[in-house]
């Protein structure tokens, strides 16, 4: 088992507005993520879980503490972290192929290598047939699969996913969860996944991070020692789900 730490968040906090009168969105989050690990973060809405992801992605600077990836402090967004957003965020004037190729292209990867990666990723997400389609011609689930492929095209160290399946219908979501697990097992990319779905968090993760209500802190981290593929109807699954929901529920009562 590989247990090399890749992402380290050390005492990270986020404040909006000026000192004194500002709002603290996130307070003293410390989290280590291991290489190849799948970590989900759940929390009440407004707890700052998406803001935390934005800081890891480099969109929002930390107000305190620091985040390092493989020992290097983060400064701004970079191609070592692929981001998948809640909305697919595909470039609408680019074909599926061009969308996936965008990352390697701006990173000056040779054209041959780009073609190879695009083909591999299209194969991986099962959308080879749609390589020349426009995003508007795809269903919601297909768009999100392309978004995942696009984020993977840079061969990032981490995949950061901000409630990527929240806008999809239940069946599509279920399908994409399985797809994501399959992709994760194939590529072995470390994944940090934000969600408000308890089932989703337990189904996917090696560890579930439960956050407190505002200001966001880590309430507890629950390991999910269940073999994959997981079945939501087993007693073991139910036990972990209850652990997560109890932790969340006590948080909701305090508000």
């Amino acid at each position: 088992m590989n247990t090399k730490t890749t992402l380290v968040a050390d005492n990270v906090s986020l404040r909006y507005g000026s000192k004194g009168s500002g709002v603290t969105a996130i307070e003293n989050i410390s989290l280590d993520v291991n290489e190849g690990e799948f970590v989900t973060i759940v929390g009440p809405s407004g707890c700052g879980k998406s803001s935390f992801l934005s800081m890891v992605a480099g969109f929002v600077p930390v107000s305190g503490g620091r985040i390092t990836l493989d020992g290097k402090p983060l400064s701004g967004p970079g191609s070592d972290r692929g981001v998948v957003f809640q909305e697919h965020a595909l470039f609408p004037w680019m074909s599926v192929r061009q969308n996936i190729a965008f990352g390697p292209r701006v990173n000056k990867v040779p054209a041959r290598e780009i073609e190879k990666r695009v083909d591999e990723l299209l194969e991986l997400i099962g959308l080879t047939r749609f390589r020349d389609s426009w995003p508007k011609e795809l269903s919601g689930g297909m768009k999100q699969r392309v978004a995942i492929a696009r984020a993977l095209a840079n061969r990032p160290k981490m995949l950061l996913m901000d409630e990527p399946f929240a806008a999809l219908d239940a069946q599509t979501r279920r399908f994409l969860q399985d797809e994501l697990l399959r992709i994760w097992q194939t590529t072995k990319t470390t994944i940090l996944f934000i969600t408000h779905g308890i089932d989703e968090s337990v189904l996917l993760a090696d560890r579930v991070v439960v956050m407190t209500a505002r200001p966001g802190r880590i309430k507890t981290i629950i390991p999910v020692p269940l073999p994959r593929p997981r079945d939501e109807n087993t007693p073991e699954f139910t036990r972990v789900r209850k652990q997560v929901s109890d932790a969340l529920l006590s948080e909701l009562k305090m508000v």
Partner: protein
Amino acid sequence: MRDMIIRTLSLLAFLATWWLLALVNASVQWVPAVMIPTPPQVLEAGWDIRELVPGDIAISLMRVFEGFLIAAVLGVLLGCLSGSSRFAENIIDPVLEVLRPIPPLAFLPIFIIWFGLGEASKVLMIAFSAFFIIYVNTYQGVRYADPLLMRAALSLGASKRQAFFGIGLPSAMPEIFTGLRLGIGMAFFVLVAAELIAADSGMGFRIQEARWQFRVDRMFFGAALIGMIGFILFAVLKFAESKLLAWKPRREAH
């Protein structure tokens, strides 16, 4: 399809009403018959000056294109600048906001004094008028380019420049195109006004000339000609837009 039929019928009904009105007026003589020519009379008037028409169209279109080109280049350039940089916005925007509400035609006499009665004053007048609408639309489009797409581009390793030219600018294309379309409309609008006042050729001038000759039928013809040319120009632009922006999800029909 059904829309097209209704639209065509509406147009035909309009023509018929005009024709009927002209015929009734010719027999009852509310006003002298020459004041309201029938559609065939207007066509005939056009036929009479048929040697002049191509030249008029050419010179007018030339003025529109020259003016429009200047406006488009400046408008898109400055719009991009102030849409993408707060510093540029603070410098460019206030000046333009002050000038914008002034009807461009108010500047026409000034332009004539500055640039004379030749081509320059008309072309620059057109450029000046069309500029604002192109600038504003570009500025808005670039300024409010989908921040999510910009984030996506940055997270994929794009530099700020790459994100702007690769993502910000293309995502503003629909707005820029709207600006260009409105800009052409504006250019046409001002063209005629400029030619009415200071010209010795062009479609607008031909109307003015007909007025001196008291040829209402020719005035009608001139107006119809400008309408036709404008219509064709818009159709071409619309077509180009639909090709270039084919990626855009179509808005739901209401």
